[in-house]
């Protein structure tokens, strides 16, 4: 299973393994000698000539088609053939041609794409001149010139660029989906070539490098030039698929072309996921094969007995072929019955299943309610084969940042000197809900204000303007105490780069309230305080870390006052307050509680004026500690501790980690649908917990929320066991394992355990690592699965996948993983269903997902509406399909007893051919594409409707057994009623009607009408299309039947249509119709009675809701309920800085300040591979190396 994690497949189709690539610039002859692939790509599979043979070859490798061929061969043996060849050939041709058409259109699209890409133009240096060339003609060793916004032609070695220091900027969206710019730099040596064509043409450097591979983050090679050798790494390589941005031009040397490029090497086949219904079907098909063999055996034994008893004496009229005796006859009969009864094996089912899955996928693509206007993104079913599984989800694994939250922090509330600001109240002092329309505070008095900043409480501005010292100190602190870096491209246009969005939000708030952080040097911080430029001397940064949970700066004001500003988690700050603050502390605590209750991330702010002497002394010791070689961290912490005491409280800030729209509602809905949600986040515990509360996962009404945060394996185990015992005291030590062997695969399935009440579980990264170890896995699983909500913090991408894998492996449940970032790829690929949020963090998650959309809230629609419908439809389809085919087939079985087990068919051969293909095909597809039990609004209203899917109630082995019995009953009715009615009967003019042909016609008409009525009974949602399909199919049946039994057809194809006149002669008989009517009623009567009885006695949730819908017909459908925001009294610390150590070092070292000011976007993210990057990045980090010259 671990192989699932390997992100990409590798093309292993190489003639000769290339060990090293060797090429010389501008020397085509030399390079051609190696026969490297040129830059043409081919993703298409076939060409005009190979299409038919290759495609057919592939198709016949499928079991279903192979089975058809096997049947066809059987039919060609005259002794066995109980059906004409066309009964098999026609469906086979149809199936083949549908697949053929689909593959053809796919391949044509691929050809078009290939052509489009191959015919793109690029400027290539040929014989000392730049010529425009098609991409496909570019060779390894060519030098190409790229211009701004052009796609990179092939994998290039960057030679030179228009930008200083030979830098270029690229966007890798097509490659890894990330839309932010990355920087690449050429070697100085080649950079000197500039855009001098002569020099470039004369360039003859030789490159030796690794052979083509699929690693996007690695390149090793050397460039040899004038006898000197230079090392080449990934920094110098431009990969195909990237786009050049913000760079006028650049030159590059083609290293890998076309199929050898890393892009193409990466486009391996993704893991093929199958749904649980697929697996069940495989089991059932095996069973059906067995059942078929069983029926055939019985019938052939019957044949042997008949041949022995009757056949021997019947020889006078029915001689046997030479040498044939009873046993040979029985053997042949076995195979004859295999042909006749082959319809129990649902071969055409596979085709239909694909069609209806495709249909349901289109409905997902088309849904306007999953279309996000802002980003113009519709939902997309990227895999069309998993829809019904969406209706069976039991566990959702969600990423947090970017999925549940928008990763936008907004400064929302603050408490300054015991007064809370930020709440909007009306005249009566009542709280007003903040909406889009609420009037925003006008910051126009402050020219440096960030126009995007919103605040709704006017009082705060007034207080600031009025010059309240506490309020000003509050914002001064926010403007000084941080590690944000400013960037001022043009005068007055400030951009902040913060390591964590919280910090950015706080500094921006200070900026808008008149304390603008403008620039910093290692020694100073320049502010504009209420319009007055002020420069503070930065004396020390007492950086943040996880243990300290606070950060301080020591600054000297222009007036020479020394001050320590500190912000941090309230509990931590409170411990270090001066007793004089205790009164303020109480008030602030109240406010903090209130903020926390709203799910805001809070910080307490404090300051302290320092004594010059005291500080000098401290500084010496600080210097000592910071230069000591051993145990520096600990020593520094102690030093910090010394000075961070007797602080004076200023107040508290509250930042909102903005949830995506509708997240709490969605989670509540999903919880009602009994879906368990696990949040797997890279965040730290407090943050995650907070989000858990604010998005409704963790609720106050939960009985208990367990927090597992232990440091050793034993403690973790203990905490897990304790939690479990608390939830379910009677749960045993041994997990309740249901061992099952399925098709040779051994699986350990842990059963669900009963718990009353709702619980939550929070587990931190450290504990999770222990808990995921082999011997503790099941313990974790048991405890976690008893909880309604589970939050795992500080999880690495690999652990995300492990957690998903754990549940997938040991629970009989369908899992779904949803995420937006590269760090979610592994879990998206592991889960049964992966959903990608096509949002801000790029496309990587989407590219590996099965479904994608723009907002988390669409998940409820995807599951509760589309998933549920898909599951319902698929199950209905399967049930009905099996029913109709079994019923069809079993009639043959009964007839066997009346025709000497001779494999005589009951129906006309044409009916057998067309039954699945024409007469019942469209109605069943109509049923399975349009059917809905209740519409989407009701589905939302009653999320409980989702439960049957999770329990596999609509289609399971039990359901299959019921279908078998039902079919058995129906077939008995369908055979014996016509049998009894026709026995020794004649027409109303005394002529024959009990003849074989009339009987066949009667039996098949009864069957068709009975299954059509059954279909009507199964259909919940009768659209015009359904009606049309059903009535259309019935009329087609009669039309086709009358046509095939007509004089004309007989006279033209005498031997193919021997049933001439049967329809005319028997369908005008009243007793024929009375028989049809009787059989139909008898077939559906028990079904109706049973269903009605169940609705009365044991109504399912579905029945109840449908009943409600019926009652509410007059009343308009319910509106989506409003969810009042809950106010929670529990105190939760929400200190929410980024989890990594801050970069105070960087701030003071001043390395970053040596950057030449450039008018380029400077948001360079890390270029490590996303999956390998173990710490999830909640915010962009500064990539300092890239900027250093």
């Amino acid at each position, binding site marked *: 299973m671990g192989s699932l994690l390997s992100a990409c497949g590798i093309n292993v189709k190489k003639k000769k393994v290339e060990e090293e690539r060797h090429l010389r610039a501008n020397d085509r002859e030399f390079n051609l000698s190696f026969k490297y692939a040129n830059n043409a790509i081919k993703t298409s599979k076939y060409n005009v000539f190979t299409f038919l043979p290759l495609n057919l070859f592939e198709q016949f490798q499928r079991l279903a088609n192979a089975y058809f061929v096997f049947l066809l061969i059987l039919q060609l043996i005259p002794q066995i053939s109980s059906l004409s060849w066309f009964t098999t050939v026609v469906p086979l041709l149809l199936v083949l041609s549908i697949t053929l058409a689909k593959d053809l259109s796919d391949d044509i699209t691929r050809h078009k794409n290939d052509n489009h890409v191959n015919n793109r133009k690029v400027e290539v240096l040929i014989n000392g001149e730049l010529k425009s060339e098609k991409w496909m003609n570019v060779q390894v060793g060519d030098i190409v010139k790229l211009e701004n916004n052009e796609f990179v032609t092939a994998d290039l070695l960057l030679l030179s660029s228009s930008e200083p220091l030979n830098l270029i900027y690229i966007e890798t969206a097509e490659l890894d989906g990330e839309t932010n710019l990355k920087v690449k730099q050429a070697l100085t040596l080649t950079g000197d070539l500039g855009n001098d064509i002569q020099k470039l043409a004369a360039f003859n450097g030789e490159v030796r490098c690794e052979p083509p591979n699929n690693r996007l983050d690695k390149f090793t090679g050397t460039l040899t030039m004038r006898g000197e050798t230079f090392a080449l790494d990934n920094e110098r390589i431009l990969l195909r698929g990237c786009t050049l941005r913000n760079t006028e031009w650049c030159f590059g040397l083609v290293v890998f072309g076309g199929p050898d490029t890393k892009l193409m090497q990466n486009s391996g086949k993704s893991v093929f996921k199958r749904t649980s219904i697929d697996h069940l079907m495989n089991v059932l098909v095996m069973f059906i094969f067995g059942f078929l063999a069983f029926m055939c055996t019985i019938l052939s034994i019957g044949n042997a007995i008949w041949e022995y008893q009757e056949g021997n004496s019947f020889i006078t*009229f029915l001689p046997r072929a030479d040498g044939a005796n009873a046993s040979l006859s029985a053997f042949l009969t076995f195979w004859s019955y295999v042909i006749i009864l082959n319809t129990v094996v649902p071969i055409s089912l596979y085709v239909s299943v694909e069609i209806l899955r495709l249909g349901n996928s289109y409905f997902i693509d088309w849904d*306007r309610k999953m279309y996000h206007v802002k980003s113009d993104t519709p939902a997309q079913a990227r895999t069309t084969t998993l829809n019904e599984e969406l209706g069976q989800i039991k566990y959702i694994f969600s990423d947090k940042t970017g999925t549940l939250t928008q990763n936008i922090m907004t400064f929302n509330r603050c408490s300054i000197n015991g007064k809370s600001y930020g709440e909007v109240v009306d005249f009566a002092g009542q709280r007003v809900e903040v909406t889009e329309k609420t009037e925003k505070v006008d910051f126009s008095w402050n020219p440096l204000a960030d126009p995007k900043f919103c605040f709704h409480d006017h009082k705060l501005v007034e207080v600031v303007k009025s010059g309240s010292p506490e309020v000003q100190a509050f914002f001064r602190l926010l403007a000084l105490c941080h590690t944000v870096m400013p960037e001022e491209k043009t005068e007055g246009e400030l951009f902040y780069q913060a390591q964590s*969005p919280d910090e950015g939000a706080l500094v921006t708030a200070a900026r808008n309230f008149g304390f603008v952080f403008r620039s910093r040097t290692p020694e100073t911080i320049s502010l504009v305080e209420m319009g007055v430029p002020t420069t503070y001397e930065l004396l020390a940064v007492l950086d943040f870390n996880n243990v300290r949970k606070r950060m301080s700066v020591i600054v000297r004001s222009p007036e020479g006052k020394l001050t320590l500003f500190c912000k941090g988690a309230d509990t931590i700050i409170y411990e270090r307050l001066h007793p004089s603050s205790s009164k303020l502390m109480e008030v602030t605590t109240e406010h903090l509680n209130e903020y926390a209750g709203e799910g805001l991330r809070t910080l307490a702010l404090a300051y302290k004026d320092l004594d010059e002497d005291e500080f000098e002394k401290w500084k010496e010791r600080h210097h000592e500690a910071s230069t000591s070689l051993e145990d520096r961290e600990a020593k520094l912490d102690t030093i910090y501790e010394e000075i961070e005491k007797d602080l004076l409280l200023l107040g508290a800030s509250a930042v909102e980690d903005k949830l995506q729209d509708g997240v709490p509602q969605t989670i509540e809905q999903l919880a009602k649908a009994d879906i368990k949600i696990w949040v797997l986040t890279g965040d730290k515990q407090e943050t995650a917990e907070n989000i858990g509360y604010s998005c409704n996962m963790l609720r106050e009404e939960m009985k208990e929320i367990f927090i597992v945060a232990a440091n050793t394996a034993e403690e973790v185990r203990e905490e897990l066991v304790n939690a479990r015992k608390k939830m379910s005291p009677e749960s045993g030590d041994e997990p309740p394992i249901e061992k099952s062997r399925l098709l040779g695969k051994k699986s350990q399935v842990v059963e669900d355990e009963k718990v009353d009440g709702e619980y939550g579980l929070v587990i931190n990264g450290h504990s999770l690592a222990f808990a995921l170890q082999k011997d503790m896995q099941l313990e974790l699983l048991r405890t976690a699965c008893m909880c309604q909500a589970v939050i795992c913090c500080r999880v690495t991408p690999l652990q995300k996948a492990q957690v998903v894998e754990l549940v997938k492996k040991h629970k009989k449940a369908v899992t779904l993983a949803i995420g937006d970032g590269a760090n979610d790829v592994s879990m998206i690929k592991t889960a049964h269903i992966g959903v990608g949020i096509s949002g*801000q963090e790029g496309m990587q998650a989407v590219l590996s997902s099965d479904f994608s959309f723009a907002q988390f809230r669409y998940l409820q629609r995807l599951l509760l509406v589309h998933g549920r419908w898909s599951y319902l439809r698929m199950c209905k389809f399967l049930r009905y399909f099996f029913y109709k085919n079994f019923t069809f087939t079993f009639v043959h079985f009964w007839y066997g007893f009346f025709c000497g087990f001779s494999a005589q068919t009951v129906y006309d051969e044409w009916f057998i051919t067309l039954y699945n293909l024409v007469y019942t095909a469209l109605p069943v597809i109509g049923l399975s594409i349009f059917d809905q039990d209740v519409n989407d609004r009701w589905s939302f209203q009653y999320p409980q409707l989702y439960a049957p899917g999770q329990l596999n109630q609509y289609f399971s082995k039990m359901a299959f057994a019921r279908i078998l019995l039902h079919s058995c009953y129906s077939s008995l009715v369908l055979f014996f009623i016509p049998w009894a009615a026709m026995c020794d009967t004649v027409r109303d003019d005394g002529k024959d009607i009990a003849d074989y042909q009339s009987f066949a016609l009667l039996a098949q008409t009864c069957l068709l009408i009975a299954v059509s009525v059954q279909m009507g009974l199964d259909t919940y*949602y009768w659209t015009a299309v359904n009606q049309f399909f059903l009535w259309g199919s019935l009329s087609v049946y009669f039309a086709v039947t009358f046509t095939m039994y007509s004089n004309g057809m007989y006279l033209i194809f005498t031997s193919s249509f021997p049933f001439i006149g049967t329809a005319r002669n028997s369908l005008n008989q009243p007793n024929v119709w009375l028989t049809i009517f*009787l059989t139909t009623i008898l077939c559906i009567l028990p079904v109706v009675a049973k269903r009605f009885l169940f609705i009365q006695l044991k109504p399912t949730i579905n029945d109840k809701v449908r009943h409600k819908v019926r009652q509410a017909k007059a009343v308009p459908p319910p509106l989506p309920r409003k969810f009042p925001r809950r106010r929670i009294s529990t105190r939760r610390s929400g200190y929410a800085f980024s989890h990594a150590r801050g970069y105070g070092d960087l701030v003071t070292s001043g390395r970053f300040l040596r950057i030449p000011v450039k008018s380029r976007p400077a948001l360079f993210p890390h270029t490590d591979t996303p999956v390998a990057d173990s710490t999830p990045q909640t915010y962009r980090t500064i990539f300092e190396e890239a900027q250093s010259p």
Partner: protein
Amino acid sequence: IMASSYGAKEEDGHHPGSAGLGGAAIRTKKPDNTAFKQQRLPAWQPILTAGTVLPAFFIIGLIFIPIGIGLYVTSNNIKEFELDYTGTDMSSPCFNCSQSWNSTNTCKCELFFSLDQPFESNVFMYYGLSNFYQNHRRYVKSRDDSQLNGDERSLKEPSKECEPYRTNENKPIAPCGAIANSMFNDTLDLFYIDPNGKKRPISLTKKGIAWWTDKHVKFRNPGGSNSNLTTVFKDTAKPVNWHKPVYELDVDIENNGFINEDFIVWMRTAALPTFRKLYRIIQKNNDMTPTLPRGNYSLAVTYNYPVRSFEGRKRMILSTISWMGGKNPFLGIAYITVGSICFFLGVVLLFIHHKYGNRNNSSDIAS
């Protein structure tokens, strides 16, 4: 801050997601707002409520029972007389014939019977066979429809399906195949014995016993307008079991060769191993007297057809018919039964609905 950097991206004119091959997608990707695509097609959503199910049961019951009674009465009014003349019993006049059957000698026997009730209107005379597997697969397919349709080529070269009755002495058999070969060839004659003991033959019509489509479309003599069947069938052999060739089945040119109605009737194979086939029709002559008055009759059988070897039975059936065909009480009884069950079920369901249904349906859904 985040917002500002995001904004910068938008200004770039770069849409995440449109970076693919096509590129410039100016058109919005918003899906169309059609009822079909949004799955809002107007629909009728029937559910099984007490208001629909219970009346349905009662109505079905109310419809079925009268139909059933009607059918039953109709079936009962049909007069039918059946006479087994296989001759398995020592006491049967045909016992000797059935024992000493050979293909050359014709054996005759005569059975006497009496009708207790007069048969009004047309009377249909059938022969019935039991335990005769006319529906056996090998039997059913052992014919050549092209040949029977008058196709010259098939006449010379019958289909392989006819084996082993395809050729005889290097001549193609016409009509070929096992079905034709096993054609029923007993001759049945009916006599009325009037009260003074005199035997009067009853005239039996042999035309109009086959389906019109069979007689006029499916079966045609080869040679088209050539009325001399002897020459048409010149190069063919007669079926092995037959006493005379196909062109001597009847003297009437309209009832000879492949279009001989007895032959056509036989060729329409039965669905079940027990079957009856129309043999003759006794036309009603005038309105005054019944077609077959009460009294004694005799059946003269020319016993040709061997069924003893496979324990088959041969019957002669006299029957009148009604609008629903021949006598078959099954449908009537079935309708009455089903109707009663419906009615009964309706009552039971009504009871259950009253007792439990209201409670369950009005109960709210726990949310």
